[in-house]
């Protein structure tokens, strides 16, 4: 069933431009592969664009797929080569995070399961047919029911039509559908909202409407709910209502250092802070809604000094917070992440909710009507229930779909054992995860870029999932599988295809026309009944009565588990690009590490790469040390994808697990582990990469020395391409880096190369510790200097300066002297030490418009010259100049906060020139007189905030 026929079914002639692209119907023709005609060298046509949805994480951003037509193994076909956010999409508005950018690596991953498999007598997997597999399943289901056992359907988060289908399936086949399993279940938030508002949901936080944002532990720009959207909205709020954003956290996170102000708070003491805020605000009656007495009297009341002592925040900071809340028109507080995933995380969440309500929560900041679609997601309690029923051998057939409990659950071995107590274990998965290893039948799933479907990230939004490429292997979508099983059971000749099922649903829901519109846009916003959240006095009172403020913060070492921006909960680890791109906070690429406070490190005499052994309840885990500034003493951090906290307490009330591992001991093993830390030093010491500080200007003699040039600057005619990077908007999410890798066919060089300092990134994020208070970033890429030191030294003119101010690199002219790279003060040139090629079938994703570099040549950023070329050709056809905003580079395109502005500096009215000439602007290492075309706007000092 290919697109064309499907569109016919929709009643649309394939002629109509479905998606705003000229190439689309050509592309449709090409979906069926055919052997190529003789002239195989001409194949770069215009790319085709499809709208679909990113399924890399539960956020479900809207994606526009760029599919290029090219010849692969002598077969001409179209291949998705780039993913970009759909502009104006209610979730991500054009942007995409690094994981989304990299998800093509999942589509073409060589380790995908390529055909259905079944375990034979001697316990080995053997390839089987779908029919056979289905038959076995049907038989076993019947048998199990016969034995009076319960069949269970255990899956990852499922939304949209698929959710409904699953219910149908479960009803049809008499299977229990279990609450879905997500590591980041946010159970405490749901529970808290249930207590305070009788709404067991996670609201949609409308940050864009806030003028003051207080995030408590919630890593809003990393993994919390939808980081892309949050980042995007924070920027909107900054522009619209000059948002000031404070972050409170017990450890240190990228989100924290990106906030305009960050407070390190003692472990577990968030609840005291929130309580204090509530009390003091109500006392100075600056609350928008005053809490009912029966509640407020239950809120502990401490003097500011006590709170200061408990939380570790200075008194003036506390006052600052108070005044912020008091003066803010639409304040917003978001608790989550490490602050709610802990012993008294529920209390924290409840107080946060109360504070939201009391400080005038309205639907335009905390929106329950468009709540995030987490209703069907269960918690650890549900998992425990499953384990119990497995213990009591009550389970017959266990379906495990799109989730990997064995990897993510505590006591994995135990769960594996329990699983054995079932008749049959059916896995629906794309990879051979540890869970799949334990199953009897493996049903390979198609990637969402190979399948039809839809998703509902939150109430009121329906995202389209449509294929951009034929399934590459004998895989099927979950929908098809369920339908086929049902059909085979009912003995129907041929099963309905999931996409027919979808059409029926869509038609019945929206009607035909609207369906087409949805396909064009890639999403549909549907009205939802408004139902304001009302404070539930009883629930809250009841909770507060026996709420425990028991857990005191202690000075013993504590291991804090943090989510990873690169791997999410670990699911994105399979994407090689996620290990290739440095972790923004530590600049580590490959391998694991433990973050140690610089103070602790100094005390213990540890340095980066020293190995330490962490003893936690019997287990001993070894990690190399990474010294982490800003991290409070005695707090150690390991990312969630590296270890699972063995047996950390689970809150019996909510089912949230704690991410703090207590009574651990950490000792050096004396070993020294090579670890690829990309950053040579975290200290910038006024070298001119960050803006020079007013008080001690390093180039004070500038004025007494007229800036001299030995020769006149050269001419630009129509264009001088330039860039302005606003480091105040930048949130360090590294999406730009990923975008650059995919757009420009950058090599994945691997750990060994990284240890030898041979990474290939053209654009990198450089963290600088500023006097131990904060970490400032700069984004380093080729500065396209007008007087580029790299150019004149090339003996063969392999690099030279284009009339448009681009510092171009002629790959096939380069002989590889590496002189240019030596002479580049920004060190942004990259040399091909070997033939770094993506192994098959990853090479399918190569962008045909950018040459793949061979060994022995230099490469570098050229402002996505291929995109410039396209725009200029277009402009030339319409004989006009390229308009401002007509082109943008891959990095700028995907930036959630539009921190990167690309354009023509010759055009005085272009956005980039305006920014470049704003009085904030500075250029990196300006005193070298290289005349860069990249202008930076520094991060606004938090002083201005206070």
């Amino acid at each position: 069933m290919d697109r064309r026929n499907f569109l016919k079914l929709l009643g649309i002639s394939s002629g109509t431009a479905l998606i705003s692209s000229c190439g689309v119907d050509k592309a449709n023709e090409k979906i069926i592969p055919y052997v190529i005609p003789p002239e195989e060298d001409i194949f770069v046509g215009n790319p085709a664009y499809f709208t679909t949805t990113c399924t890399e994480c539960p956020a479900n951003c809207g994606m526009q797929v760029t599919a290029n037509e090219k010849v692969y193994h002598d077969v001409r076909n179209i291949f998705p080569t780039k993913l970009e956010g759909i502009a104006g999409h209610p979730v991500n508005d054009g942007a995409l995070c690094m994981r989304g950018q990299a998800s093509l690596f999942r589509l073409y991953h060589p380790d995908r399961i390529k055909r259905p498999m079944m375990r034979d007598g001697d316990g080995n997997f053997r390839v089987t047919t779908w029919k056979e597999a289905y038959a076995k399943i049907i038989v076993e289901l019947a048998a199990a029911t016969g034995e009076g056992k319960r069949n269970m359907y255990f899956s990852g988060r499922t939304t949209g039509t698929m959710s409904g289908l699953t219910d149908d399936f479960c009803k049809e086949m008499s299977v229990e559908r279990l609450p879905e399993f997500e590591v980041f279940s946010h159970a405490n938030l749901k529970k808290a909202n249930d207590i305070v508002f009788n709404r067991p949901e996670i609201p949609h936080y409308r940050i864009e409407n806030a003028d003051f944002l207080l995030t408590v532990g919630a890593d809003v720009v990393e993994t919390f709910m939808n980081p892309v959207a949050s980042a995007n909205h924070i920027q909107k709020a900054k522009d619209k209502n000059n948002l000031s954003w404070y972050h409170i956290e017990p450890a240190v996170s990228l989100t924290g250092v990106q906030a305009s102000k960050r407070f390190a708070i003692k472990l577990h003491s968030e609840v005291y802070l929130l309580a204090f805020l509530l009390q003091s605000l109500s006392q100075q009656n600056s609350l928008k809604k005053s809490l009912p007495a029966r509640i407020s009297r239950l809120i502990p009341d401490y003097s500011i000094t006590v709170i200061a002592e408990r939380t570790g925040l200075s008194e003036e900071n506390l006052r600052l917070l108070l005044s912020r809340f008091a003066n803010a028109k639409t304040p917003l507080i978001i608790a989550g992440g490490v602050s709610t995933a802990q012993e008294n995380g529920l209390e924290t969440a409840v107080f946060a909710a109360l504070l939201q309500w009391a400080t005038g929560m309205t639907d335009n900041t905390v929106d329950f009507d468009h709540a995030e679609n987490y209703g069907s997601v269960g918690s650890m309690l549900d998992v425990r229930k499953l384990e119990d029923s497995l213990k009591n051998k009550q389970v017959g057939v266990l379906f495990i779909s799109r989730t990997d409990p064995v990897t993510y659950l505590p006591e994995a071995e135990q769960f594996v054992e329990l699983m054995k107590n079932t008749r049959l274990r059916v896995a629906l998965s794309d990879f051979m995860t540890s869970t799949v290893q334990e199953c009897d039948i493996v049903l390979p799933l198609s990637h969402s870029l190979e399948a039809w479907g839809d998703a509902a990230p939150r109430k009121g939004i329906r995202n389209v999932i449509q294929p951009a490429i034929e399934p590459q292997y004998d895989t099927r979508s979950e929908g098809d599988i369920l339908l086929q099983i049902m059909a085979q059971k009912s003995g129907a000749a041929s099963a309905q295809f999931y996409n027919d099922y979808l059409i029926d649903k869509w038609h019945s829901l929206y009607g035909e026309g609207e369906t087409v519109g949805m396909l064009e846009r890639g999403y549909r916003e549907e009205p939802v009944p408004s139902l304001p959240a009302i404070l539930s006095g009883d629930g809250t009172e009841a909770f507060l009565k026996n709420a425990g403020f028991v857990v005191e913060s202690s000075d013993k070492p504590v291991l804090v588990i943090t989510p990873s921006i690169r791997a999410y909960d670990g699911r994105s680890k399979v994407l090689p690009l996620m290990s290739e791109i440095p972790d923004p906070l530590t600049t580590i690429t490959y391998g694991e590490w433990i973050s140690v406070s610089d103070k602790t490190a100094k005390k213990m005499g540890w340095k980066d790469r020293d190995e330490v052994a962490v003893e936690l309840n019997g287990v001993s885990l070894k990690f190399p040390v990474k010294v982490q500034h800003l991290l409070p003493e005695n707090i150690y951090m390991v990312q969630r994808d590296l270890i699972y906290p063995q047996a950390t307490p689970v809150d019996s009330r909510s089912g949230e697990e704690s991410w703090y591992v207590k009574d651990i001991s950490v000792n050096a093993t004396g070993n020294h582990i090579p670890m690829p830390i990309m950053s040579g030093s975290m200290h910038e010491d006024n070298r001119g990469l960050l803006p020079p500080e007013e008080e001690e200007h390093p180039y004070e003699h500038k004025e007494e020395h007229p800036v001299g040039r030995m020769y006149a600057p050269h001419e630009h005619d129509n264009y001088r391409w330039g860039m302005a990077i606003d480091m105040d908007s930048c949130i360090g999410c590294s999406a730009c880096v990923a975008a650059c890798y995919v757009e420009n066919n950058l090599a994945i060089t691997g750990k060994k190369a990284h240890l030898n300092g041979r990474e290939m990134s053209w654009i990198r994020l450089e963290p600088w510790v500023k006097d131990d208070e904060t970490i400032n970033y700069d984004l380093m890429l080729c500065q396209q200097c007008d007087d580029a030191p790299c150019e004149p030294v090339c003996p063969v003119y392999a690099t030279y300066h284009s009339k448009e101010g681009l510092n171009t690199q002629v790959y096939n002219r380069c002989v590889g002297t590496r002189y240019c790279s030596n002479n580049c003060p920004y060190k942004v040139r990259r040399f091909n030490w070997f033939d770094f090629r993506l192994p098959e079938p990853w090479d399918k994703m190569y962008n045909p418009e950018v040459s793949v570099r061979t060994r022995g040549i230099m490469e570098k950023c050229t402002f996505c010259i291929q995109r410039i070329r396209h725009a200029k050709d277009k402009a030339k056809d319409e004989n006009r100049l390229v308009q401002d905003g007509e082109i943008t580079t891959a990095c700028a395109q995907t930036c959630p906060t539009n921190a990167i502005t690309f354009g023509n500096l010759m055009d005085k009215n272009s956005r980039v020139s305006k920014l470049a000439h704003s009085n904030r602007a500075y250029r990196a290492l300006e005193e070298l007189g290289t005349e860069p075309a990249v202008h930076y706007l520094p991060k606004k000092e938090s002083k201005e905030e206070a």
Partner: protein
Amino acid sequence: MNEQFVFGEKHEFLQKLKDLVKGGISPKKINVFTPYPVHEVEEILKVPTSPLRFFTLLGALSGLFFGAWFTAWTSLDWPLIGGGKPIVSVPAFVIVTFELTILFGGVISFLGFLILSKLPSPKRIGTPVEHGNQFVIEIQSEGK
């Protein structure tokens, strides 16, 4: 038949040479062979300075002009901007020009030497003339 005088010692040889010149034999008729350069000979026989210097001058100048022209011309042939430097960057081109001056000068001087002193001479390579460490004066007899 040429007449030959052979000496073992330099001073005897020079003395004889002086006498011969005094004796009115025109230096043109006299040829001498010495195991190492003897500058006095040139004074006695009033040999002018070697014309080799003209080759050298020619070589050096040709190198100079070629270098200057070539560097400039190739740069203008396809003008590519590099590091904002002028297309014809004289300060940079000086070097190559200088090297070429020396290269041409040296090579052409050497060729000049071979031409002037009739080397290599196949005849002599075939049947080498050996005078050992002796000083030989050879006078072309009349008639020839």
